């Protein structure tokens, strides 16, 4: 226990962190929907969690939490309004490959800081080196990324960013939108799904450039797999994407069509959630069913892109199950209610144990106190180190399991009394009773654990929290009975107060035992 307490004192994490139903905030539960109605695989859910987490955390909301719970995804954001959270998680991330029709730096006034005029947008982002699957990097050797930059002259940009761009064949409305688009923060359109059948205006992820993009040529569902990798020759990170058969054909078609077109129309943009992640130039048709997306990647950014590509490949859509926003006053009320109920319940159990078991009741009560302490320490530790948040279902689970914990004592005590009734001395009864009670406690706790684990794995929403609390306290119960109650009773059995069966010890020898020890009563 001291070992458990030390880090808590060190971290000053005396008060566990509370879940949203106690602290106030917004919870959104997303249910995955697959096209064919089958159960989504666990991997795809885990990937979806990673992506949604990226999205929520990337938006600057701190302290948000995205977890998988059963086969739903729960996003909790303390202290935030509903609208804001919904905008972030309400939509599905969609990945598309689109041909770049035009590119320009982001508007200087909108971007906050003026964009250095000499830095063409695409130089920050990558050149790509598609290669047929299998063999080593063929054909075009990596060239300087800067070569991929648009040919807009710096001078022209100062007057009109669109001067010098080839806008032939693009609808005027789109050009107008392109002219006006503000690539700073919100207006980037992050989280808004783009229409795959239409041309769109989009911004790069870092907000430094804007694009006009053609209809989606390849979609996220056409990607079979994507992995981050490092080029052994240059040590540069890239993402290797592998397509499905249909995707490979579509990818070959689009890369074949745009290779050889003038900059920037030979570039293929990777668009996630309406944001251009990268827009490499295509130097030769990609026919092998896999592509290499290169650029200024670090290990993190390559891993993230690969994950996003895989997510785009997930045949998952999310439906909003519940959206719950709890005001902080209601949360505080619930916490107070839960704590009062727990205190009251504990008090009632302690009162009953003392009344019924008297001296033995003290053993039960100290056992309960030890169990309560262990529970508190576990909760505080989990909260400080494992991101655990105490919520209402947890509290209910903990209160309910006061009964289970107390029951272990009752089972044992009754066995000891059976032994006393059979005329055994206390220290013997404590040992023989233990052997029998141990089996009962183990079997019964095993059943509770099975129930808790099943509920935890299959549950939706609060059930998991409740099941977790039940499982945790069952384990604590086992620890307390084996390591505390039993040794304590072994010691107490040598104390006169108990061993002699004092009137208040709760171990008074029943009169009938004495009667039973006498010769059998004679007949009538």
């Amino acid at each position, binding site marked *: 226990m001291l070992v458990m307490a030390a880090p808590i004192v060190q971290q000053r994490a005396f008060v566990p962190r509370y879940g949203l*139903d106690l602290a106030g905030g917004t919870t959104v539960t997303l249910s995955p929907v697959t096209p064919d109605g089958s159960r989504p695989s666990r991997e795809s859910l885990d990937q979806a969690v990673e992506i949604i987490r990226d999205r929520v955390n990337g938006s600057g909301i701190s302290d948000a939490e995205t977890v998988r719970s059963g086969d739903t995804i729960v996003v909790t954001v303390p202290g935030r309004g509903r609208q804001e959270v919904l905008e972030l998680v309400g939509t599905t991330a969609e990945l598309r490959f689109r041909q770049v029709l035009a590119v320009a730096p982001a508007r200087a006034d909108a971007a906050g800081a003026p964009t250095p005029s000499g830095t063409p947008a695409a130089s920050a982002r990558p050149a790509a080196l598609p290669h047929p699957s299998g063999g080593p990097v063929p054909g075009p050797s990596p060239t300087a990324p800067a070569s991929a930059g648009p040919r807009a002259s710096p001078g022209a940009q100062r007057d009109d960013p669109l001067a010098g761009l080839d806008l032939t064949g693009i609808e005027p409305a789109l050009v107008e939108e392109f002219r006006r688009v503000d690539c700073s923060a919100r207006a980037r359109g992050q989280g808004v799904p783009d229409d795959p059948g239409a041309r769109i205006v989009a911004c790069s992820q870092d907000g430094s450039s804007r694009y006009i993009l053609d209809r989606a040529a390849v979609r996220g569902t056409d990607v079979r797999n994507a992995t981050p990798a490092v080029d052994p020759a240059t040590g540069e990170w890239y993402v290797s994407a592998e397509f499905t058969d249909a995707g490979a054909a579509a990818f070959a078609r689009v890369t074949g069509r745009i290779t050889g077109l003038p900059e920037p129309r030979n570039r293929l943009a990777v668009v996630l959630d309406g944001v251009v992640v990268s827009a490499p130039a295509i130097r030769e048709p990609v026919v092998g069913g896999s592509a290499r997306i290169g650029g200024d990647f670090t290990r993190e950014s390559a891993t993230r892109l690969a994950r996003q590509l895989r997510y785009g490949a997930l045949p998952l859509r999310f439906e909003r199950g519940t*959206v719950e926003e709890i005001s902080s006053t209601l949360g505080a009320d619930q916490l107070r209610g839960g704590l009062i109920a727990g205190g009251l319940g504990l008090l009632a159990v302690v009162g009953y144990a003392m009344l019924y078991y008297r001296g033995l009741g003290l053993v039960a009560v100290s056992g309960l106190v030890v169990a309560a302490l262990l529970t508190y320490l576990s909760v505080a530790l989990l909260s400080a180190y494992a991101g655990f948040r105490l919520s209402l*279902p947890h509290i209910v689970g903990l209160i309910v399991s006061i009964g289970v914990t107390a029951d272990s004592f009752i089972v044992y005590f*009754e066995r000891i009394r059976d032994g006393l009734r059979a005329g055994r001395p206390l220290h013997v009864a404590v040992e023989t009773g233990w052997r029998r009670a141990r089996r009962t406690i183990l079997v019964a706790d095993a059943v509770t654990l099975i129930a808790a684990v099943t509920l935890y794995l299959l549950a*939706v929403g609060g*059930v998991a929290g*409740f099941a977790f609390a039940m499982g945790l306290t069952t384990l604590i119960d086992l620890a307390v009975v084996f390591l505390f109650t039993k040794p304590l009773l072994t010691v107490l059995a040598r104390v006169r107060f108990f061993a002699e069966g004092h009137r208040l010890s709760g171990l008074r020898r029943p009169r*009938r035992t004495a009667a039973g020890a006498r010769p059998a009563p004679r007949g009538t």
Partner: protein
Amino acid sequence: MAGLADRLRGDGPDLDILGRRRLWYGLSLALLVLSLAGLLGRGLNLGVEFTGGSVFTFTSASATVERVREAAAGAIRGSGDGQVIVQRTGAHGWRVTTGLTSGDRQSDERVEHVRRAIAERLGLPPGEIGVQVIGASWGGRVTERAALGLAVLLAAVIGYLSFAFEWRMALAAVAALGHDLVVTAGVYAWTGFEVTPATLLGFLTILGYSLYDAVVVFDMIKEVTARLGSTGKMTYTQAANRALNATLVRSLNTTLVAILPVASILFIGTTLLGAGTLRDLSLALFVGMIVGTYSSLCVATPLLAALKEREPRYAALARRVAGRDRALAGAGRSAGPATTAHKRRKRQS
């Protein structure tokens, strides 16, 4: 009370529970029929979590039902679903349930509109109004998962009990459990208590609890009946009855100890918080625990005994005991089966 406690503590009770098994079967059958009639006839009062909709919760000392209803109904009018339920919860708590569900951007805005309307009307900051929006398909999903959980749980427990004890005990325990679930659901149907996901959670917990209770009783039965074959003085049923009496004190104690905290949650949940997770859960547990204790004593054990008596060796044992009793009775009615002898001795002392 003290007298009862002393008696229980001293001797241990000696009640012929299994002898009255017809009474228990009849009682349970009546309860089951009544419950099923309630379930089929009246049905369960499903909460908004199952039907889809939105719930607005807030506290206000000055609000009245009329004002709250007016504000909410006025904001909803025109959006197709005009149904509004206004409830008081706790001292100053309010709960407004509407049929608005979530989904697209539009419905989000409608929900927001209602919230602002209520806030304005009652002079509250909008942030003080909690909102819960439940999609129309959510309830089906919860039910589906609960059913799956139930199936897996039952399979796992039957497997484990068959391994730890034997299949007859597993079967009897699970039958008792089905009894508990149906009767608890029946109580909900007849009383019209609202069924929410928290209630389902409570039902699932009852499973664990009911099984736990049955396991402890069965463990004792196993121990007592282990030495049966050699003596030939008792039938399986009589031995099981003795085991039942041996664990009776524990069963009642356990129930009491388990119900005390649940009752305290129920009390706090109802008086302080009104409708909500705490109350729904504790109510299901409260009802289920009482039914569960009854069933592990009066349903699971008689069923187990009935199953065991069909086993050839226990059937033979029952015949032997019956023959011995007849012989003894003929010899001068000096002793009966063990239970009766036991009782008589007790009366003398």
